[in-house]
């Protein structure tokens, strides 16, 4: 653990809300709550902002993953103090839950990487992007957090398969026109489907059902994949729509393994998000944008917003215990690692913070109830997300720096149950040195082996895995065939647990990063929690962008309405 430097006691010691962890949902809540006038103390045990959403240098990322994984030795916990009885409350010790497993980090060109080590901003929760029409963008605009982040476009998106070929995702009229792999008839069918969706959206927003075509209620409730079949779209196009536009994870054609069968209604919503994103900002190339300096900028932007509104920030400050009322068993406050005791009405915790089972046994029922959200639940489905990060020299596609690549289910190998998403980011986004790229990979999985296997398969499809034996005696023939493939310099593989957030009255627990490509579900859960905490108080009511910073930045995307 981090050595806690001597810290002056915090003043005041009483708040409306204490938030532990600076992930995206915690930061959104901090900004929202302080903007509505609540006094907020925002803590993070780490020396950086963002928690599991942070962007870190390679050494920092390595140590964070190791210290938060199962394989690491449990933190030397001081023997649990007996619940102190000298006050009106009892204290319950907290335990850190590990989110990561199967962490494996390997470096193939340590010297070069060490030389540049501080020039990396690598995301913990990658691959992740923002859709231009995302709720998170709306929230940034509404809160004013957009003033602290700058975005750039993702240049292209591709669909890959085992052949190694990357085909452009025909996601717009112009892209369909230019596409070289679709037949004329497929172009026609795909565009017609886009038009149908657009016409349906127009009819549902304008309430004018005279001329526009609307998709029937019955179809809206049917599985999206069936609807696509009904529209006579060929398998190739179905796959593009399902996995590269609607960004689904599970094989929609396989009822046995599909955990989430999408309804047409949801499918249309997802397509709508994509379509609206395409045209939202005039200087964005496509639907997707990425924050310069990494995803860690997003929680930080909300934190800055919160700080402006009076939220107090303390980093490197874990909490060690919860304080409960002796009589009622209700929540009172927390004990910081510095020893100081701080009190608040409500408490919001990072998903890693849990209560040890042994400490629960000595508690009363009422106390147990207060802490219920912190008790690790036996998960019903062991769904996890496996993630991979590669630092490579060169690019997976010539002339393209920032790109999203989707491998639909079964596209790489027959047992591939879920879509694998890969994102390449370049130095233009200030995430790595000039001639390199960072690749993020992720896929949902039931167990670590399955997830890691999928990621390795996608990696070998895209990049050259350095072979230490062959490294010296490079055979010319082999070099010729894989010359175009970029070479791997550094790699991290890990599997992350998916923890859901939980609202528990006074104490609430926030979700871990999810397996999605964007923040929509995370932001949604944060907003729901805000509603539960604050009632119907309007979100960021006064913030409607008074400051108007129109900086001309080349290639950057101004997200202003």
């Amino acid at each position: 653990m981090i050595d806690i430097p001597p810290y002056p006691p915090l003043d005041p010691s009483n708040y409306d809300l204490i938030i532990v962890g600076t992930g995206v949902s915690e930061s959104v809540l901090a900004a929202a709550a302080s903007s509505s006038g609540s006094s907020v103390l925002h803590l993070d045990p780490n020396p950086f902002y963002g928690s599991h959403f942070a962007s870190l240098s390679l050494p920092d990322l390595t140590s964070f993953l190791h210290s938060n994984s199962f394989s690491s030795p449990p933190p030397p916990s001081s023997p649990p103090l007996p619940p102190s009885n000298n006050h009106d409350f009892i204290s319950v010790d907290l335990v850190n839950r590990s989110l990561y497993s199967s962490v494996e980090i390997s470096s193939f060109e340590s010297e070069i990487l060490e030389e540049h080590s501080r020039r990396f901003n690598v995301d913990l929760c990658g691959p992740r992007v923002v859709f231009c029409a995302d709720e998170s963008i709306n929230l940034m605009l509404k809160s004013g957090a957009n003033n602290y982040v700058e975005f750039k476009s993702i240049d292209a998106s591709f669909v890959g398969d085992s052949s190694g070929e990357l085909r452009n995702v025909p996601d717009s009229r112009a892209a369909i026109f230019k596409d070289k792999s679709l037949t004329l008839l497929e172009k026609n069918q795909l565009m017609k489907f886009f038009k149908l969706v657009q016409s349906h959206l127009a009819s549902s927003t304008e309430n004018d059902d005279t001329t526009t075509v609307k998709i029937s209620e019955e179809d809206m409730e049917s599985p999206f994949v069936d609807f696509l079949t009904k529209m006579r779209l060929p398998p190739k196009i179905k796959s593009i729509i399902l996995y590269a536009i609607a960004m689904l994870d599970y094989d929609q054609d396989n009822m046995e393994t599909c955990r989430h069968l999408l309804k047409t209604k949801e499918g249309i919503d997802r397509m709508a998000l994509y379509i609206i994103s395409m045209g939202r900002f005039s200087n964005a190339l496509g639907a997707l944008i990425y924050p310069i300096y990494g995803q860690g900028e997003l929680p930080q932007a909300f934190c800055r917003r919160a700080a402006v509104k009076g939220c107090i920030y303390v980093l490197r400050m874990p909490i060690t215990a919860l304080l409960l009322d002796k009589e009622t068993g209700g929540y009172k406050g927390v004990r910081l690692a510095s020893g100081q005791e701080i009190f608040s009405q409500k408490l919001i915790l990072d998903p890693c913070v849990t209560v040890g089972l042994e400490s629960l046994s000595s508690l009363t029922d009422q106390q147990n109830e207060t802490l219920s959200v912190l008790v690790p639940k036996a998960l019903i489905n062991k769904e996890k997300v496996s993630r991979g990060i590669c630092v490579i020299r060169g690019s997976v596609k010539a002339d393209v720096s920032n790109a999203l690549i989707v491998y639909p289910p079964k596209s790489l190998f027959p047992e591939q149950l879920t879509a694998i998403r890969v994102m390449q980011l370049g130095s233009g986004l200030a995430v790595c040195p000039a001639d390199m790229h960072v690749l993020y990979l992720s896929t949902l999985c039931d167990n670590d082996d399955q997830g890691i296997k999928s990621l390795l398969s996608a990696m070998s499809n895209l990049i050259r895995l350095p072979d230490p034996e062959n490294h010296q005696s490079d055979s010319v023939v082999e070099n010729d065939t894989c010359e175009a493939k970029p070479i791997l310099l550094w790699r991290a593989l890990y599997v992350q647990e998916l923890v859901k957030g939980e609202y528990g009255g006074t104490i609430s627990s926030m979700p871990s990063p999810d397996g999605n490509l964007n923040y929509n579900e995370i932001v949604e859960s944060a907003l729901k929690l805000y509603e539960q905490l604050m009632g119907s108080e309007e979100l960021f009511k006064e913030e409607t962008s008074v400051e108007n910073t129109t900086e001309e930045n080349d290639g950057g995307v101004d997200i202003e309405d």
Partner: protein
Amino acid sequence: MHGRPRKAASKPEASAAKALKLRSVQSQFMSNHHRKIYTQEAIQLSAKLLAINPEAYTAWNYRKLAVEDNLSRIDDSDPSLVNSILNEELEVVAIALRRNLKSYGAWYHRKWVLSKGHSSLEKELQLLNKYQKLDLRNFHAWNYRRFVLELTKTPQQDELHYTTDMINDVSFSNYSAWHNRSELLSSLVAKKADGFMPKETIRRELDYVHNAIFTDEDDQSAWFYYLWLLDQTVKMETPLRTSSWPSDGSIIILSGPGCFNGSSSSSKFTTFCSESGSFPLILYFDQAVSGVSSSTVTIDSELQGNQDLVWEPVSDKNSQLSCVWVARLKFDSAEPCFRKENKVKVSLGKSQGIVSSRGCYLSAPYEFVFTVHIHDTVGEPQEGIVLWTDGFDNWDAQSKDLNSLITSDQLNADTGFEWRKQAIKIEIECFRDLHDSKFGKLILARLLMAEETMISDDAVKGVHYNEILQLYKDLMALNSSHDQYYKDEHSVALLHKVTSSTESLSRRLFLYRNMNNIVCLRLNNLTLSRIAAVEKFLFVQMLDLSHNELHSAEGLEAMQLLCCLNLCHNRIRSFSALDSLRHLKQLRVLDVSHNDMGGKHPVDTTRYLCSRPLSNSAEIGRQVPCKYWDAYLVLRDLKKLKQLDIIRGNDLIAGEEFSSFVRQVLPKLVWLDGHKLAS
């Protein structure tokens, strides 16, 4: 710029103030202009005016005068002085364009300045890129771009790449870019530039534009370009004689006026009675040509007096371009060559001169031979009324006579014939996939028609017609607002179908007993709205088009042998729609009853295009009531007309006045609306 709503006008008070200001500037400017004041101050004022109103043409012209004036005063040897004057002009234009991107005067002024030798073309291109980004389809900018590139001598290939980039990277719904492409390609193909042979170029472009059409079948810009390409593909360059009368190898029987005696044998041949001792020789080309004359068409025959034939174009327009050319060959039934076979050899194109509107010459020399029998006449010409109801004998389906009447098409010698045929084949396959779109159907129908004309194998000829007819029927149901167009095309296809084989044509051919057994083609009750395929039945002398939906007689002018024509129960609205009948010198019987003539549509808009009532009224003279001038224009040329059915079923003033007018114009008329006229 396109599809965006206009901004609401500013408040009335504000615009009133603006107008006041504009008016004062304008009057000051006009006074400067009239007094030819070209001081710096006065020039500034014109700039001010143009900044407010770029449409002030006078101000642009004033500036041109001022520039000329200034240039005449300064030392020409100092280029910087000239440049500073011209730069100021460019600046004024730029300001005006900021106000209105589509100001004709401003763009023209810029061209004018450039023509003065101002040479910063690089800057012009930068400016253009800016404007073309502001509005992709600003045709002013595209025009100006062509002008600048002409000056810079930029290779057209580079400019072609530019249009590709505009289409690929910005939007393919860009008429201007596609149009520029067609201009560039036309020029490159004409120059025979490397890699721009017509065959490859058109194939490449067709494949390219398919992407746009299939991506968005409702996008008109792509269709426009496609139609241009299709035109380039379908249209042969070299004109072709498609048919003639008499046709190659045929035998015709000529006689003088009166009843030809020999009804038993006549069915085998075409008989033609002439009162004037001449018969028409008709040449029909697949496209309008000029230069048909006695020097380009030579006649070799024993018939006397046909050395210097006069060839006349048969067309409504007063031009020397026509698909149909006719000359009158003389014969004399009193000559000793009577009952003798006279061979007539017609040779075309031995000396070059027959040329299409595109400037292409008739491909190869061609000749054909026919035989003429001359019979004497027995008895008096028939005076009986033609009733169109009976007196018809079926054509003997077994007889092979028809083969000699219908000319087989001359083989097309166009150099591009094979690749064109191939290209159309590929296009047909391609558009069968787009069968549920209305444009797809229309293009498919057009492609099938084009392919049909290229089929030379008799066994498969006519194979597409049923599909074409069905496509147009579908289109009529699908898009009723363009119903009339589809109906016309349907008629064209139907007529081609009927005439596609001797077998199907012979089913509609009859012999009219009461008039020398002349050949009658009955195309009644076919819902025809337009006449086509006339070249296939030039030999017909009696034509029944009754009970159709024709709105014009256009196309019939080629039928120089026609003596009886039935157009009753059609939708002809006015006499000007019958204009093409003027060319039918042989016409003796005409039925135009039961149409809409003079009825619900008293104002015929086509009249303004072709005829001038006032200039003609003097010619008609006092005797002819002025209100019948349009009838007069058609009827005056039908000198031989003996029977006319016109009043019944038309909203004409049926009275003594009209019938006396008709009798005056048509002195030979015997029957008017079924009544025998008193002589």
